[in-house]
Structures are given as structure tokens and as C-alpha cells.
């Protein structure tokens, strides 16, 4: 403060003076952030030129030359501007199929409602003040509601069999059920891997390392081709359910490793104190160790969730109609065949919104949990 009160005797240096006007502040900002040194200035100029060029061609392709709507399957105008402009008309034409697959057209409000239920469920679960035991009940209720809406057959809803499901609900179902069942599995396996009992420990190590050592695709192949071989005659499990089981096993192994990291961060004294109180193994872990351990690893858990959400797209390879598969199928139609880039951008945006929300959330949690 003293320097400011005594300063008027001397003329202010340029920097201090320029701080007062908005233009001066802008110049200062530019100087420190874009033109701090010769190298920095060269980089800035090059980047600005590149960005401007990219921006202009993107606007030309995506907006200026783009066609937003065509009547029926008349894609002639779209084809004539191919390479010069985007054909966004493919989205209004196909979005119902991309989002909901072959679900009966007049019943598509049901999967739409399912997607909203999922989003509400995610939102509720992300609130810190909602992290209580009742949340498990909310999840159970939501999952039942989702089942009723998708299958129908009760409350006057017509029955829709699983092989007509498709699009976004399938992606959300695979991801959510995979995590909902994979999480408890992961906890058990993580505890087992740190158990003092050698047989249990080696079983858990074997499971985790086998699953993590091979690509997800081979697990999915296993689920789609090999799994039926392992069942007795006459027992037939639906393809979607088989993929779901593969995803649960996959999620269990990866989540177990994350949770194990959290368990390792718990100081020895916590175990000793719990033992001194005479708590049993399950009480000790359930009441003292696990709540702390999981809190430790929430950011990496959310990162695993994101990875897992993206990985559900791999069911494309075994022919299950998730969001990516419906997108790829929607452009088989000869009239629209050439406009896959537009469809991929649209679907990519949907995936991005979900993953970006989760990663923002994880960063926010990390910032909150940091001391100070």
C-alpha cells in the first residue's frame, strides 16, 4: 500500500498506467500471455493463422455450405455439395433410429423416458449430500422403472422384446448396469486381493490379471461365441445379457484395482483401532476401512466410469445395437450412405457431453477434496 500512496511524486511506469483502462488491460494481457518473448510471439502468430484458416474452412463446411433439411430421401443436393459442405439433413432424417434403434416407433417415448431417468439418476448420485444408504434404494427403484419401461408387458404397456432395443438406452443400460453390479464385485475382489488367506488372494489376483491382461474385444467374443458352449443344453441366454455379464466382469476387475489403491492408502492404525474395538472382519471393512478408502479414490473411480462408458461402444463388433452401432447402421441406407462423417460427429457429440460432464465432475471433486 505504501508504494501506491507515495507513488504520485513520480510519473507512473507505463505498465501501471495501462492497467487502468480496459484497452490497456487487454494489451497487458496480450503481452504476458501471447507475446511474452520472441518465440512465444512466433508461436502465437502461427497458431492464430492456422486457427483462422481451420475456422474458416470449418464454418464453410459445417454452416455456410451446409444443407440442413431435404424432403424425403432426395439427397441429390447433398451429394452435389459433397466435400464442400455438410449434409446435416441426415440428422433430422435419422435421429430417431440413431437414438432408439428399432424400438417400435410409436412407443419410443418409453426409451426416451428411460434416458431421462438415467440422467436424473446420475445427477442425484453426484450430489454429495445424497451420499447415504437411501441412495441404494433410489437406484433399485430407478432400475426397476427402467426395466418396466423398456420391456413393458405390465400397466398396459405393450411388451417389447430385447432384440428390438437399440441406441442410447442400450449404451446407458450396458454402462450403468455394468457399473452397478461391477462395483460391489470390485469391492469384494479388492478386499480378497488384500486378504491374508492365500487361496482367496490368488483367486482374486488370477481373476483381475486375466481380465486386465486381455483386450475387451476378446471378452466380448467370449461372451458372444464361447459362453453358449459353457451352458447346459436348452439354456439360452440373450445376447445383450451375455454382453452385460462380460461388462460386469470387466468392470469388476478394473474397479477392484482402483479400490485396492484406496485400501492401500488407509493407515495401518485404522485396522489396529478397529481390531482393538473387537469388530468382525466385515464390520471393520464395511464401517471403517471401505468408506475412507472409496472416498480417497473417487476421482480415479470417475475416470474409470468414463473409460467404461466409452468402452461400451465396443459391442458394435459383436453386433449389439448400442448408440454407435445404430449410427453406423443408419447410413447403410443407399440414399444417405455418403454422409457418415455428419452422423459420427452427431454421435460423437452425445458421447462427448456425457464424458465431459463426468470429467468436469471428477475435477470438481478433486478440487473439493484437496486440503486448504
Amino acid at each position, binding site marked *: 500500500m505504501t508504494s501506491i500512496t507515495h507513488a504520485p511524486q513520480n510519473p507512473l511506469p507505463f505498465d501501471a498506467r495501462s492497467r487502468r483502462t480496459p484497452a490497456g488491460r487487454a494489451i497487458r494481457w496480450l503481452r504476458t*500471455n*501471447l507475446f*511474452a518473448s520472441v518465440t*512465444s510471439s512466433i*508461436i*502465437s502468430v502461427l*497458431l*492464430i493463422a492456422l*486457427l483462422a484458416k481451420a475456422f474458416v474452412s470449418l464454418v464453410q463446411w459445417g454452416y455456410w455450405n451446409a444443407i440442413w433439411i431435404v424432403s424425403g430421401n432426395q439427397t441429390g443436393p447433398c451429394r452435389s455439395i459433397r*466435400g464442400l459442405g455438410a449434409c446435416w439433413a441426415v440428422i433430422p432424417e435419422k435421429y430417431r433410429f440413431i437414438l432408439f434403434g428399432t424400438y417400435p416407433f410409436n412407443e419410443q417415448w418409453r426409451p426416451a423416458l428411460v434416458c431421462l431417468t438415467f440422467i436424473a439418476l446420475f445427477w442425484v448420485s453426484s450430489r454429495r449430500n445424497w451420499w447415504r444408504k437411501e441412495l441404494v434404494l433410489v437406484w433399485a427403484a430407478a432400475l426397476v422403472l427402467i426395466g418396466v419401461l423398456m420391456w413393458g408387458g405390465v400397466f398396459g404397456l405393450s411388451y417389447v422384446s430385447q432384440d428390438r432395443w437399440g441406441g442410447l438406452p442400450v449404451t446407458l443400460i450396458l454402462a450403468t448396469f455394468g457399473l452397478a453390479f461391477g462395483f460391489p464385485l470390485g469391492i469384494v475382489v479388492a478386499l480378497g486381493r488384500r486378504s*491374508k*488367506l*492365500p*487361496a*482367496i488372494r490368488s*483367486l482374486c489376483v488370477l481373476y483381475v490379471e*486375466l481380465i486386465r*491382461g*486381455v*483386450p*475387451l*474385444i*476378446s471378452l466380448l*467374443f*467370449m461372451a458372444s*461365441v*464361447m459362453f*453358449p*458352449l*459353457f*451352458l*447346459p*443344453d436348452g439354456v439360452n441366454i440373450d445376447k445383450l445379457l451375455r454382453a452385460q455379464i462380460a461388462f460386469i466382469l470387466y468392470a469388476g476387475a478394473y474397479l477392484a484395482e482402483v479400490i485396492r489403491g484406496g485400501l492401500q492408502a488407509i493407515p495401518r492404525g485404522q485396522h489396529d483401532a478397529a481390531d482393538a474395538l473387537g469388530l468382525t472382519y466385515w464390520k471393520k471393512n464395511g464401517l471403517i476401512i471401505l468408506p475412507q478408502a472409496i472416498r480417497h479414490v473417487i476421482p480415479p473411480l470417475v475416470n474409470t466410469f*468414463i473409460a467404461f462408458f*466409452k*468402452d461400451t*461402444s*465396443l459391442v*458394435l*463388433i459383436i453386433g449389439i445395437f448400442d448408440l*454407435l452401432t445404430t449410427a*453406423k447402421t443408419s447410413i447403410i441406407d443407399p440414399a444417405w450412405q455418403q454422409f*457418415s*462423417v455428419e452422423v*459420427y460427429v452427431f*454421435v*460423437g457429440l452425445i*458421447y*462427448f457431453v456425457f*464424458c*465431459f460432464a463426468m*470429467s468436469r465432475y471428477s475435477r470438481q471433486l478433486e478440487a473439493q477434496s484437496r486440503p486448504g
Partner: protein
Amino acid sequence: MRLHLNRQQVNGLVWQIVVVAIAVAIVGWLWSNALHNLSVRRISTGFAFLGREAGMPIADSWLAYSPRDPYARAFIVGIVNTLRVAVIGIVLATVLGTLIGIARLSSNWLLSRLAAVYVEVLRDVPLLLQLLFWYVLMQGLPAARAAWKPIEGVFLSNRGLVLPAIPIEEANLWVIAAAAAGLGALYLLRRQLVARQMADGKARPLWPYALALLVGLPALVSFSLGASWTITLPELRGFNFVGGLTLAPEYFALLIALVTYTSAFIAEIVRSGIQSVPRGQWDAANALGLRRSFVLQRIVLPQALRVIIPPMTSQYLNLTKNSSLAVAVGYQDVVSIANTTLNQTGQAIEAIALIMAVFLTISLGISLFMNWYNARIALVER
């Protein structure tokens, strides 16, 4: 000695016996079902099918292969294809990821923002979607006749990327081997020189040795064997290219997708690694009057690497496992070939066991190497 067990130990024993019994029962049940089902479908178990003729065409292979070769040969081609994309992908992703990670820390606002956007966009879109996207773009490129020619000798068309190349013959391989041997010798020599500097404090220059071992020795070998290093430029003849090195569109799309996707994760790892080195380390080094490059090489990087290496290992493993997405664009890696085999012969268990064996071996190899490297750079505490 008397067997003496307390209650806890008895409990533990009972638990273990129960869990193992359940596991064995489940596996046994599944296995007996499988045997029954296989005998019903008349599929013989075992790896005898590997000797049969594959009859499967493989378009893109570095090894000599024809559809009349046995399945075993097809699998080896597949493994080479997997390694080809994984190894090159790991190298390129590390370079690109490191550059972007450093760019994120740049004091230039535009550069760091741009790097952040790159990381965010690529991380939040599924790899398979990105792969399909790149592949569609590849297919949308002009035909070979109208190929793009960004610089002389490089063609980009729907046939893939064609680059000028040096034909590799035996003599060339010997020269490369000489250079590798020179590098090894240089490494040992450097240790020796550093040890002697430690003893008497006199700095000894390394560069004359480096020049002799890395340039002189290979040049000598090349000259004595008469190796040719002329670069052949690809040419368009008829509908396709002759000469040069061709990266098929499938391979190229897969490589781009894997490299860009993994580089986004590596960038974050590098960034957090550099940020984990406390500011005081820089200050202390500056106070000692050390050169900036020396500070980075000898003080900051070794500390950052300790944080960087473990997550980097898992990224390398991820890239290798993700290379199996090749099946979606029709690049024939080992998973794709196993899948075709499985459809042709019905040998599901064997095909998947082979995939598992290959990937577990590769994963183990990468883990062992990275663990060795990690142990080398780990903090030595008293």
C-alpha cells in the same frame, strides 16, 4: 511339533476351502458342459487345427503369406501385424503426447488452451468412434490417380499413404545392427567416463566417442558391405503405386486413431509429472548456476519420470490392447485373424485361448520392461 490353530485360523481355513470349492465346482460344471456341447457339435478340441490350411486371405502383411498356408502361419502374421501397429503406435504416441503435455504447460495462452482442447475432445469420445471416423475420412480421399501430393514422393489417396523408402536388404540390416551395437558400447563407455569423473573431478568429453561409434562404425560397415541407401520414390503406374512404402488405409486409420487417442492421455501424465516437481528444485538448481538444459535433464526430468513411468506403462498396455479394435476396420491383427479362424473352424476355446496367450505375453513383456526401467530410476533412499 503340535498343530496349534486358534479360532481365527480355523475360520480362515474354512473360508478358503469353501471359496475354492465353489470356484472349482463352477469351472468344472462349465467345463463339462463345454465338452458335452463340443462333442454334440462334433468339434474336436485341441490345437491340431493350427496345421490345417487356413484359406484366409491376408491383404496387409510384412511376412510372406498365401491363403494356402496353415492357420499357425496366419496367426504369426496376425501377431506381427499387432506388434507392428502397437510398437510404432507407442513410439509416436509418446512423442506426440509429450509435446502436447509440454504445450499444456506453456506460458503461451493460445498454445496451452489449444493443447487442453485437444486433450479434452480426444479423451471424451470413444476410440472406436474415432477409428471409424478416420477410416471414413480415408475412404473419402481421392482415388490413386488424383492422389494428394503434399510433398514430392508422398501420396495420400484412398489406397492409403505412400512414402518414399529405402529398400532394406541384408547389408542394410548389418549397418543398423552396427549402429545399435555402437549405441550399447557408448552407453557403457559413458558410465565409465562418469565414474572416472567422480573419482578425480575432471570432465571428459564424450562426443568424439559418440561420433566414432554412432557415425564412424556404421559408415565403415556400410562401406565394406557396399550397402545401398538410395531412396526409391513411389510412382503411379496404372491404377496403383509402385515402389516406396505403402501404409494401407486400414493400418493408417488405426495408427492415427491409436496415436491421437493415447497421446491425449500421455499428455496429461506428462503434464502432471512435470508439475509434481516442486518449484524449489528449479530455484535451487538456478541458485547453483546450472545451465537450463542441465537442470531439465539431470534434476527435473529424473524426478518427473518417477511419477510418469507407472501410469505410462498402463497407457502402453492400453494402446496394445486397443489395437485389437482393428477388427472393426478390417485390419488383420491377431484378434481379427483369431475371429476369422473361430468362424471357419468353430474352435472357439482355442482361438480365444490364443488371443489371451498373445496379449498376456505382450502385456507381461511391456510390464517387465517398464518395471525394470522404473526400478532403475526409482528414488534410492537410505
